[in-house]
Structures are given as C-alpha cells and as structure tokens.
C-alpha cells in the first residue's frame, strides 16, 4: 500500500495513581499546552479514590477539549460493587465524550449506543474478537500489553475497516488487579480501613526481591511493573500498523516524556539515541520484552526482536 502515511498520534493514558485534587488540577492544566492529541481521563483503578467527582472530570474534559485535545473518559477496570457499576453507567451516559471501556460491563452498556474505545484491560487477542466488538461500536483498540508485535502483524492482514490501533508505549505496565489492596496490606490494614494510604505513593509503592531487585510497583488493588515499558521506537516505524502511542502519566516529568515522543515523531530526534534522554525518567530501568514476544521485563536495545 502506497498511501500517504498518517502521522501517528500521541495519547495520554488515565492517571493510574491516587493524586490529591490540586495535583490533578495542576497536572491537567499543564497538559493543555503539550503536544498530546488525545487525553484519557478518569479513575480506572480504585473507586474509593475521590479527589475528583464525576463533575470535576467533566470540567477538566471540557477544558482540554477547548485546548484542542480529543478527550476520552476511561472506566474502572475491576467492578465489584453495584455502586461501581453506577459510576460506569454515569460515564457511559455522559452524552458528549467518547468512553474507553475497561471491562465488559462498560462494553455491554455502550454496545449499540455509542462508539467506544476498547481499553488495555479488555481481552482482545484475535481478529474474531475484535470484529465482534467492532460490530457493536468499538472504533479503537488499545492492545493488551502482553501482545507482541508479531501478533499485531497477524491482525493487520484482516483488520476490520476503520479500527485504530493504540499501543501502551510509555509507563509502568498494568499487570494485575485484585480484590485485595496491597498498599493497605503493606500498612497492615484491610482495604475497608485503608485511610487512602496510596495517596502517599504518587508513583506506586516499590516491591523488591530479597536481593534488592526493583521488581513490581504496588498501586492499591493494581500491580504494575517497576520498570518503565517503552516502545518509543515504534514512532519511527511507519509499517507497524500502530496509529496511536499511549504515554501513561507519572508524578513527574510527564511533560518532558511527551516532548521527547513528539520530537521523535517530528523526526527531530532519533529514537535509538533518545533512549538516553528518557533514562532519567525511568529510575528502575526500561523494558520492552512483550513487544519482542518475550518476558515483559526483558529489554531489547534495538527495535528488532529475536
């Protein structure tokens, strides 16, 4: 195919951590002037976190929209209580912004009602699944983080028309969700008595091995990689089939990360050389093994895998 190659877009994923209200407000104000094209908003991890109410999210969404961003509202990944289902329903019926479904409850509410994004915690591993969901209104697919580049190539041949592909390209990988809150557990209290202790860990709480290897990041009921997953080099791969690269927010340096991604996209920086520039923003190292069909924690220095 020799059509003009569309410029890849950059997205900012939902904040995965519990930040105080002022920090969230400041953060999104600073995002207004960054070159990200799409911003995902909302609490996706724990419904107890309420720095922002529904209206606050909508207010921020409207400001970002005025600043020229495409705004998507993201739903909770794990639904347990009926009150949580109520929160999801409210997002799905917002009537203005597109919704990222992070659980099949949200898909059920959105199907046939409005177009939606299939978030990274939906299990869409093959074309038959993608096609079924596309027939119900899915227009953008955020790949499960454990899928390899070779899996995406398998999709490309039969990709349903009009589906955009988004890649989790920068940030700590969301690896698991649980009923149990591990941050509370580290404080020797159950989730119901958590006192919102995760607010003290704006980038998660480090879990290391007994030989001091930085291994995982505890983020309430979510477990993340300690390493930053970086697929920056996919920006300079025009044949990858990826339309959008997602940057997952960190408590610091997110604007600089966005800026580096944008410069690579513009061709002003070389992806290979740029790894060094990003290293300070990944204190516990970087990984990209999943993309190379290997252990997620593995790291490949080039854009090409085994």
């Amino acid at each position: 195919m020799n059509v003009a190659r569309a410029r890849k877009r950059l997205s900012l994923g939902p904040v995965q951590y519990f930040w105080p209200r002022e920090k969230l407000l400041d953060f999104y104000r600073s995002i207004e002037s960054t070159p990200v094209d799409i911003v995902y908003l909302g609490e996706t991890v724990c419904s107890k976190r309420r720095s922002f109410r529904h209206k606050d999210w909508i207010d921020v969404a409207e400001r970002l929209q005025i600043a020229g961003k495409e705004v998507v509202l993201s739903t909770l990944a794990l639904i347990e209580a009926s009150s949580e289902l109520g929160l999801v329903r409210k997002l799905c019926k917002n009537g203005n912004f597109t919704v990222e479904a992070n659980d099949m409850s949200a898909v059920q509410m959105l199907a046939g009602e409005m177009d939606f994004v299939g978030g990274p915690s939906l299990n869409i591993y093959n074309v038959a699944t993608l096609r079924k969901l596309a027939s119900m209104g899915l227009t953008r697919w955020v790949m499960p983080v454990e899928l390899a580049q070779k899996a995406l190539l398998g999709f490309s041949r039969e990709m349903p028309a009009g589906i955009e592909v988004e890649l989790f390209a920068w940030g700590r990988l969301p690896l698991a969700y649980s009923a149990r809150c591990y941050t509370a557990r580290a404080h020797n209290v159950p989730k119901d008595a958590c006192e919102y202790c995760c607010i003290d860990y704006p980038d998660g709480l480090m879990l290391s091995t007994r030989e001091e290897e930085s291994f995982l990041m505890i983020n309430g009921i979510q477990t993340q990689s300690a390493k930053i997953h970086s697929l920056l080099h996919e920006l300079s791969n025009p044949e990858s089939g990826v339309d959008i690269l997602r940057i997952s927010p960190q408590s610091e340096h997110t604007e600089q990360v966005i800026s580096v991604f944008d410069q690579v996209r513009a061709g002003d920086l070389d992806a290979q050389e740029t790894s060094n520039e990003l290293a300070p923003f990944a204190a516990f190292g970087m990984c990209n093994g999943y993309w190379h069909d290997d252990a997620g924690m593995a790291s490949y220095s080039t854009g090409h895998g085994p």
Partner: protein
Amino acid sequence: MELVCPAGNLPSLKAAVDNGADAVYIGFKNETNARHFAGLNFGHKQIEQGLAHARNHGSQVYVAINTYPQPDNFTKWEEAVDQAAELGVDALILADIGVMDYAATKWPDLRLHLSVQGSATSHEAIRFYAEQFGIKRAVVPRVLSLKQVAALVDQSPIPIEVFGFGSLCVMVEGRCFLSSYVTGQGPNTFGACSPASFVRWSEKDSKLETRLNGVLIDCVGKGENAGYPTVCKGRFKVNGETSYAIEEPTSLNTLPILPELLKIGVAAVKIEGRQRSPAYVAKVTSVLRAAIDSCKRDPENYQPDRAWLSQLRALSEGTQTTLGAYERHWQ
C-alpha cells in the same frame, strides 16, 4: 448446588465421578486450556472413555477451552471446539469472545459456560455474554465478597458458579500478567502460570532459593516449606519489611460458608486443581460431597466436620486455608 470437580487425566476423572462429582471439567493436551502442563490432560480416546464412565454414573463432563488464541493459532481453538462438540460433551467452558462466537454459531445446541478466565464480575458483563452467545452459566473470579456474590446471583440473567476449594488466584483471573511479565508465558496465551521450565531451586548458604526465570521469589531455611514459585505467593520487600506482600501460600476453602452459598442460590461450586493427583481429587471431592449433602439436608444446623477441615488443610498450599475475598477482612 452442583459440585464441579477437576480432572487432569482419566484416573482423576474416575476418582471425581466415583466420589460424587456432579460434573467433571477437563481440557485437551495443548494451550487451549488454562492447565497446559506437560503430561496432563486428555486426548480424543480418553475423553470418550471418560464420558462413558461419567454417563454410567450420572455425572457430566465439561471441557475447558478457556485461553486466548491469537491470529496465528486461532484455528487450534476452533478445532478444540469442534472436537469437544463432536464427542458430545455436556458443556464447553470458554473465555475468548472470538471462540464463543465461533462455538455459538457452529454448534448452536451446545451448552456454553463462561470461564473464570473471562473476568466477568458484574451482572452487566455477564449479560453481555448471555445475550451475545447464549452462555448458560458464568464462573466468577475470586474477587467478590459473599455479599457481592449474593447481589450478583440476584441480578445475573444466568446461574453463577463459584470456586469452593483449591489453590487461590488472588488476582482477577484472565487479567493477570505477572507470569508472562517474568517468563513470557502466562495463563491467557500459554495456559500456564509460572511454567515449570522457568523454575529453579538452588541451595545457597544452607538456604533454599526458588527462582522464576532468574527472579528470586522466595528463600527458605531448613525445616520451612518451599512453596511453588508463583509471583503472588513469594516473599518480597516492601517499605523495608520482608513478607508475603501479596498472599501467603494458602488454599481457598468455603466449607464454613456453604449454607450461605446454598441460600444465595449459587448454582455450582467448583474445585480447582486439574494439575493435582487422582488421590487428591478423590479426597477433596469426597469431602466436598459430604459437606454439600450435609448442608442440603439441614442448612440451619450445618457445621463443617473437624475431620473434613483437617483433611482439606493437609491438602492445601502451606497447609492452611482461607475464605479469600468472600470475607471483606481478607481484602
């Protein structure tokens, strides 16, 4: 309330049936199911024999095809569906939407269950599968409290199956990448958590270290039990303290809450453990059978027998049991 028991081979299937399983669930010898272990599972002929044995004793056979195919291997899952359907099994336990779509279209009369690997934790999610594919029963992840299970049973359009005993996944099933993050192989795509080929045991300074693809999961002294190194049951450092930061080696045991599960209207209780021996399956099945029967006879006065509890404890990880997420305090 039906008792659904695991079988990784024909002797286990017979042990389950002979000890009172209402249904036995099995898988094929490949990555189409979530217990893809060497030497485990069923070929065509063994399923025929197992079906015959189960039928003779009034039990049912379910086949788990509950992992997630990718574009390059999707046909293998289609073949598994066809093979199970042609064998005339009683139900398929499925997780992947594409596979469900295939099964529901090609075999409209075949009974389909939603696997725990499908990660459905709300009635809206379950409604999706019931409406789209005619799913007849949903197995729910081990993340709901007893009260939440009750609400779910109440609102779900189809009957609910819950886990009653066995190894405890503490992460939502179908959404846990811890194994693939460390090894490249995990439950969703490969059908195994912490595959044995990545496990190394070694002695160092008179301690036994267990590693998963090089990552130190635990280190035990003499006399301590070394559990199997799944990431979620390891000992790690958090805030300067070394502990089982995620969960201790322990097994789920619902004997104390069987009357509640019965009263709520749970359709079936499932025992985990297709990777276990026929002797294990026989013992756990017989205890759960006796307990469920006792509970059904007189739910008001039901008490779990001490002998049952000690038998189950002896078969549990770390020889201890928990109610897991059913109990809010655990969360």
